[in-house]
Every structure is written in structure tokens, then in C-alpha cells.
């Protein structure tokens, strides 16, 4: 972030701010591993790609509701994986996913 991407980029949330916003808004994220990947990490992207790894069932339904509310004004594109799927596809490594907590800590003053 921080590159000159035109006047609109300056009024959009940074990757770190988005991560902090999601962690603060979606309490259920504590039960999951959560990451950001793709173009949003290096500036403005068309979408904000998020990877969520964890259990299905009720916990996942709850998390989806929280994310829906938190993304009212954000173009989130969320991929949900079971832990076995994340391992098998090696998605985190392959797509250079960054944990939301790590991103959010860089937003701290």
C-alpha cells in the first residue's frame, strides 16, 4: 500500500484497515484461520480476496452472517475451505495468503 493509485485509492480502506475491521466485526473469526490474498494486498484490487479455513456447520453459518454484515460497503470475495482442503490444495502457500491478524497489527497506531 501507499503507492500513488489516484484520488479514489486514498478514500478506500487499506488492506490492514480491512483486516482490522473484519476481526473487530466478526467475532466468530476466532474459531477459524483467516487470510487475505490477491491484488488487495498490494493496493487496490477489484475484489478483496479472503480465505477462511475451519469447521462447517453452525459455526460457519454464524460466520457467514457476520461477514455479510461486515462487507456491506466492501467488495469481499470469500473462499471457505475445510482444513483438509487447505492442506491438500496448499492454497495458503501457493497464493501467498497473509493472516488477517498479521495485517491488522500493521494498522495499529
Amino acid at each position, binding site marked *: 500500500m501507499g503507492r500513488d493509485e489516484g484520488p*479514489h485509492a486514498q478514500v478506500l480502506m487499506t488492506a490492514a484497515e480491512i483486516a482490522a475491521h473484519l476481526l473487530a466485526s466478526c467475532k466468530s473469526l476466532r474459531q477459524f484461520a483467516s487470510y487475505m490474498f490477491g491484488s488487495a494486498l498490494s493496493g487496490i*484490487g477489484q475484489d478483496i480476496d479472503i480465505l477462511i479455513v475451519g469447521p462447517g456447520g453452525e459455526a*460457519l453459518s454464524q460466520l457467514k452472517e457476520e461477514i455479510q454484515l461486515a462487507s456491506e*460497503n466492501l467488495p469481499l470475495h470469500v473462499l*471457505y*475451505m475445510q482444513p483438509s482442503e487447505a492442506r491438500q490444495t496448499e492454497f495458503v502457500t501457493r497464493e501467498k495468503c497473509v493472516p488477517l491478524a498479521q495485517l491488522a497489527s500493521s494498522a495499529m497506531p
Partner: protein
Amino acid sequence: MRRHRPRNSIPETDGKHLLVNWQVKYALAVLAKAGGDSTAEQVEGDLIRVVTENQPDVLAAISPDVKIDIVTATRYRQQYPGLDFLCGYRANCVWKGDAIQYLEQNRVGWGNFGTLCSAALDGSANNASHKIYKFSDRLLRQYGRVEQVIREYDRVHRVFLKGGAVLRIGMIAEYEPTADAVRSLWEQFGPVDVAWNINPNGNPTPEAVDAGSELGCEVVKWDEMKDLMRRS
């Protein structure tokens, strides 16, 4: 006198807030960052003008909606006469079949932001359709054993085969569809006979195939789809 505003500039404020909706901000920012042959500016509300050298200007409405039905599509057309393209900005935006039919009949292109950018570049905005599903939609319609196709949603088709069988087919565009992608398709659109992974690269995860079995649908690629239609 109309105030001059440079292209890709930020529109005026009311003194406190920018009078630009979030999805319009993203659309303008992404186009500005791309630095390609197209530039854009906000006209009013959700309406932007995309300008591309040697191509017609495109008036496009950038919608924040999660679902676009005929009511939404009609509202945008009435609000913005001269509309060339309706863009569902969210990646998870779903288009209902009646909205698609209405827009196509009225020569308004439709689809995601990527579709808009491509259409502006090649001057086809009024005839453009969602690029993620365009090729698969055509594949189905042109397949020899298919008698009729009813598009219920952008990604859900009811296919009448010449042998008399009817298949409800849901498309999954992900590179590697997960179990959640299959379950979400089922929950959001109702039962399907087939979950078709339309991305030519990658494959569904074993968990996705298992999820399909549990629900009662096959998770397939195009070659398996053809086999299934031959057998049905």
C-alpha cells in the same frame, strides 16, 4: 456553466462526505490504477461514463446489490435512460433469469466489472453478458443433445434434452471448488442434478465431490457433463 472535471477525478462533496457510493469508488479506482485505454468518471449516483479511445462511450450503472432481479434492472433503466451496461460490482452478485432476459431484450449489457472493462475496450457494451458464464452458457445451448435451455439464474440452467430428460444444472466458477461451494450452490439456488465446475483449469476437491454425493448431485467437469447428458 458546467464545471470541468478531469477524468478519473473524485466528484464533489457536500462539505462533509464524498457523494460517491463505495462500489463506484472501487470501480473508478480500479480503472484509474489499471492505467489502460479506458478512463472513467462518475456521472451521477451509481452511473459512470467509461471512455475508451476509438470506441463509443459507455454509460454504466455500478450496482452494489447482491441479487439483481427484474425489479432492480427495471429501476436502473428508468433511473438512467441511455444506460448501456448494468454492472453487479460484488463478486457474489447473482443475476436472476428474468433480469437477464429483460436487459438483453433492451440492449443493455450485464455482468461483473471485468465484463464491463472488456466490453468497453471492444465496443460491445450493449451486447455483453457476464464473462464468467458466457462461454458455458453457449456450450450448453450448442450441445447437440440439448433441446431447450431456460436460464433461471446467471449460473443455474434448466436443460431439456432431446431424449425427454430434464436436468437442472448449477455452474461453479471456482478454480478448485470446495465442499462449501457445492453446499452454498445448493442452499442458495435449491436442488440441482449437476454442479458443473466451469473453470477449465483445476478440479473440485474430493470434499466437494463428497458434498455433492451427500446432497444428491454430481460434481463434474465438461467432459463428464457431456457423458451425463448422453446417458440421460
